[in-house]
């Protein structure tokens, strides 16, 4: 598997009147061809900020970005963090594309679908108007829009939400990018449409041999399509590993909390087990583990370092790592027992 994207020690902070907001605080991850890597976390955990950094869509001067994001542009690796505006623009939509959360507002209401798609092609292939429109219709067909030549002449408001998300996917594929970032691609859609969109993404991933970086807070979506998972909390990755490990043997208390808070259909009508408390403010993060104030397993920490030092991303397995001061062995035993109870 060839590597397409490598993010190393990415920091993104925003200057606000109240102080620096460290939205992303040392994130590293990789994405390979033909693979779906998920970033999971609640609102404000930094997952969207991470994905926008890959697209170079943060405004210069507003966001301070350090670290490196090297992505493959047909095998040539380029560091997005250090590229000029024009160089990033050249990559956008060609080497890396993005699908956004809300298909209802992501298409320009005043331009025809076909023209909006064609523009994506024309930007990188100037002057080829005929090819652009042909490509637009081909892509609409590929994402399952019936009568693509006719629908290309219609406006976004004539499409349903699911159809618009298909259009967004078609738009992202106009230049056959290798990397596709899907930022909550199904959040705004009906459940039945969600499944269709996810199936479509998986099919296209194989067809184009793309790597998909999937941003979501929906564990159901993750279970369905992801190969590897990064769980983010307060701007950092708190657990990373193959999807099965994350679901069947989680190691970070936060991941376990997420799993426990998924509603289940069961006989005994239990209350939802939400994680207590709120995520911390990203301005002036407390020293120590950011999750400590909400953590139920603090007392198991041998060093009692939860309130004083930030845990590192460690693991006995090279592919499955997590941040926690509680010894990994003890954690896996504790968590396994809880998961068992949950499934019973």
């Amino acid at each position: 598997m060839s590597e397409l994207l490598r993010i190393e020690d990415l920091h993104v902070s925003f200057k606000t009147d109240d102080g620096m907001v460290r939205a992303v605080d040392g994130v590293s991850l990789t994405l390979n061809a033909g693979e779906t890597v998920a970033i999971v976390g609640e609102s404000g955990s930094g997952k969207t900020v991470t994905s926008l950094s890959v697209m170079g869509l943060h405004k210069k001067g507003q966001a301070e970005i350090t670290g490196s994001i090297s992505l493959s542009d047909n095998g040539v690796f380029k560091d997005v963090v250090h590229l000029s505006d024009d160089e990033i623009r050249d990559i956008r939509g060609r080497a890396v594309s993005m699908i956004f959360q809300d298909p209802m507002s992501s298409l320009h209401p005043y331009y025809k679908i076909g023209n909006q798609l064609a523009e994506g092609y024309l930007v990188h292939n100037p002057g080829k108007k005929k090819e652009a429109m042909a490509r637009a219709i081909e892509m609409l067909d590929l994402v399952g829009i019936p009568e693509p030549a006719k629908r290309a002449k219609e406006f976004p408001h004539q499409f349903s939400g699911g159809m618009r998300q298909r259009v967004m996917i078609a738009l992202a594929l106009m230049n056959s990018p290798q990397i596709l970032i899907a930022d909550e691609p199904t959040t705004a859609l009906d459940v039945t449409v969600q499944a269709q969109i996810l199936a479509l993404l998986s099919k296209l991933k194989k067809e184009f041999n793309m790597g998909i970086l999937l941003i979501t807070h929906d564990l159901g979506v993750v279970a369905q399509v992801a190969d590897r998972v990064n769980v983010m909390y307060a701007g950092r990755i708190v657990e990373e590993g193959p999807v099965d490990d994350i679901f069947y043997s989680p190691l970070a208390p936060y991941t376990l909390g997420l799993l426990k808070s998924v509603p289940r259909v069961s006989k005994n009508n239990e209350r939802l087990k939400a994680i207590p408390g709120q995520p911390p403010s990203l301005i002036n993060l407390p020293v120590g583990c950011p999750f400590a104030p909400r953590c139920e397993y603090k007392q198991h920490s041998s060093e009692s370092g939860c309130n004083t030092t930030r845990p590192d991303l460690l693991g006995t397995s090279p592919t499955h790592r997590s941040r926690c001061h509680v010894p990994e062995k003890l954690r896996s035993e504790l968590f396994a027992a809880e998961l068992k109870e949950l499934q019973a």
Partner: protein
Amino acid sequence: MLSFISRRALFAAITILIVSAVVFAIFSFLPFDPASLTCGQRCTKQIIAANRIRLGFDKPVYEQYWLFLSGIFAGRTYGSGSAAFTCPAPSFGYSFNENACVTDMLRESLPITISLAVGALIMWLLLGIGLGIVAAKFKNRWPDTSSSVFVLLATSLPTFVTGLFLLIWVTMKWHLVPLSLNGYTSIFDNPWKFCVYFILPWFTLAIAYAAIYTRFTRAALLETLGEDYIRTARAKGVGERVVFFKHTLRAVLAPLVTMAGLDFAGLIGGAIITETIFNLPGLGRLTLRSTYEFDLPVVLATTILAAVVVIVMNLIVDMLYAVLDPRVRIT
């Protein structure tokens, strides 16, 4: 489309009918005899009574109203015999104060007001939208700050102040524009003289409106720049200039057209202050004078005209909106 226009035309006709009836009623029920205006100081009761009959003021109000309405389509003859005179259709009545058919008075003043309004509209759109674009593009930098200084000044200065300042400085002190107070020339006869005649009034009006348009354009552009579809355009790899001048500006166009259409309609009703300062014999002046002098036929005509313009402009704006915004369908 056709049914839309015919339905709207029907509504327009009803509205105009109501407006004219209300104005007619107001003046009819005033404790005031319109026939007494028809002759000067040495007036006898007999002359007034004769004129009352000649002008139809002796008839019941609803009949007078009917005569007024039918006159619009059929023209109207006042009196009989050798003293009779006719205002041909469309007749809006006869002004005794001016001894003229109202339609002829409108025919004289309407071109002036339209010239004033159209010129000012073009000027303030160029100035307002232009400044708004600059302000949005350079948000919080010096061009933005200076444009907000302009906005503040222009909104706080009333037109009679800007108008007088322009007259005093530009015309009288700097002699940049010759004083041509009585020289209305049609644009078709002499475009240059026409422009010289109107340049200061245009500018006076345009400054006041441009300020509002600058503020509106800036705010609308900045709001649109935060839309999801703008982010999509950037994600496609579209350059900043195209993002701004194609994707963003396009979205701001529709509300701007609406605003411009309605403001323009308001101006046709008469820019009374500007017309007064620059001595332009337009509709605004006509309205003002006729109201002072209880010149009912003229008041009635100018009010109806203003209503018609507002209604027609509304119709045009609605149709333009459907052209500019594909989400709007007119049925």
